[in-house]
């Protein structure tokens, strides 16, 4: 038997999934528009679509109970790091260090590290207890 929270999470999860798919389709259409639109319109549109997709997950994240959040932290920290390392090893082994794939991977990792540092600083500032 499911608790009320689980039923609520299922509804929110389906909504977030639908919004994410819609964002992906919209992003794909924008990205494939080629020269039909100015580059800044495509860039701005993509940033907006991805920002909306991330904001759409906020209600889902807030609905998680402490154990579910811990599972997300554990999965993303260890699983995300291990998965990225395995992908990097594969890219280096099969396409070398100078390939376009490697450049793309480094760009993604750079973005992740920058995001990590930013959110880490925000978290530490929000949890600073002031003068001892």
């Amino acid at each position, binding site marked *: *038997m*499911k*608790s*009320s*929270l*689980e039923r609520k*999470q299922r509804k929110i999860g389906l909504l977030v999934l639908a919004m994410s798919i819609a964002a992906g389709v919209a992003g794909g259409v924008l990205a494939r528009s080629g020269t039909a639109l100015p580059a800044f319109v495509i860039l701005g549109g993509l940033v907006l679509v991805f920002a909306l997709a991330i904001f759409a997950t906020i209600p889902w994240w807030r609905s998680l*109970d*402490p*154990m*579910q959040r*811990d599972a997300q932290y554990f999965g993303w920290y260890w699983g995300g790091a291990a998965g990225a390392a395995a992908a990097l090893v594969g890219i280096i082994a099969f396409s070398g260090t100078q390939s376009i794939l490697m450049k793309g991977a480094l760009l993604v990792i750079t973005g992740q590290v920058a995001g990590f540092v930013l959110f880490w600083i925000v978290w530490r500032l929000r949890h600073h207890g002031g003068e001892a």
Partner: protein
Amino acid sequence: MRNRLRELRKARGFSQAELADAVDVTRQTINAVEADKYDPSLPLAYKLATHFGVPVEHLFINPFREGAGGAAGDVSSMMEAGS
């Protein structure tokens, strides 16, 4: 963290899903806490203790206190404390 959540819940006649609803978590979280597979957050521990009307240390056995394990008493004494 060892606890008496399962005993107390059964003594009060709650299912895991009913208790989960009462403290606004999932049934899996209640199950994991009962099985000593997950240490609850401090707010969740207080929420559970408040729900049963017992002090937190009656529900969760403090592993850092000497003689931990039997000092908090049995379920019937907790039921009396909560009533």
